[in-house]
């Protein structure tokens, strides 16, 4: 059933959120450090482990997960719609330059670092 797929993802999000907060306490910054990344990591490990054991989700359960993935871009659009874009523009030259130069610079580091993996 679709809800089982949604519950499956929910479980890993909550697991990651808890572990991320443990990590936040451990390194002293508090808050959730990398909770989403940990959730994804554990989900990938679990799904791959289950697949190696020949266990596959029923289509309807998988549809629950696919439904969430399909909602992803619309939610990013909604997220964009609530950003303080006026604040960004009003931040003036230093904000636009600091944010802009960093972004463009980092983009051109992508091919550089990706090559590290070629050897």
């Amino acid at each position: 059933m679709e809800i089982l797929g949604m519950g499956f993802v929910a479980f890993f999000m909550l697991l990651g959120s808890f572990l991320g907060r443990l990590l936040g306490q451990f390194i002293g910054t508090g808050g959730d450090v990398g909770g989403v990344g940990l959730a994804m990591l554990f989900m990938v490990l679990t799904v791959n482990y289950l697949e190696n054991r020949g266990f596959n989700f029923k289509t309807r359960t998988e549809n629950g997960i696919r439904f969430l993935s399909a909602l992803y871009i619309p939610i990013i659009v909604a997220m964009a719609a609530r950003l303080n874009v006026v604040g960004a523009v009003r931040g003036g030259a230093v904000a636009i330059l600091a944010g802009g130069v960093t972004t463009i610079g980092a983009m051109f580091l992508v091919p550089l670092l990706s090559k590290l993996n070629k050897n």
Partner: protein
Amino acid sequence: MFANAVNSFAGADHLIISIALVALIMFVTKKISIMMGEERIASALAIITGLVLAYIGGRVTGGSSGLADVSIFGGAGIGLLGGSMLRDYTIISTAYGVKLKNLKKAGPVGVISLLVGVTFSFVVGSIIAVILGYTDPAVVTTIGAGAVTFIVGPVTGTALGVSSEIIAISVAAGLVKSILTMIITPFIAGLVGLDNPTSAMVYGGLIGTTSGVAGGLAATDPELVPYGAMTATFYTGLGTLVAPSIGFIIVRALLT
């Protein structure tokens, strides 16, 4: 009578109204991109539309949450739909398609890109702050932290006790980075070889702002989203750890 009906209508179901709005945006931008013969940019167009609406919402209401300050979208409306809870929930679901071997191959270089990404952003942001005349170490550190992400900035600024105006600038710098990333990634992806799990993880580690990386990859190739998101989600944590501590110590040493 009609007015009362409209008022009570506008006061209810803000989440559903927001869903309807986003559906409309997705529909219109899909049609426009097909007409332009470049269907691939539909998501980028939709995200840009979201940003434009946020700007309009901000100007009309003077608030700091874009469209979420407009009453009909307020409360549990666009704020909930676009909030980090649902954003994280759906990002995590995209990990369902990730292959373990891609992770193992890209893991180490992903970690390196995280360290390089946070350092690079902080250094460039701080240098620009100094060039534009800021000399107080706490202020320069906060602006440098803003160039890391729009979360690391205010966390650092609060920790160092700078004025709220500087914190606003650091948030603005992070927002510029996030917005710019969302807009230019689809167009620059080919140029920087952003077309495989490894480069997506490196991109996530270098750019790091979860919303920017998520939006940029979603508009470029949804398959790459989980790889980029995986490194990006550690970026803010690393930034909040490094910027107010090591970052500040180094900036203070250099500036005094």
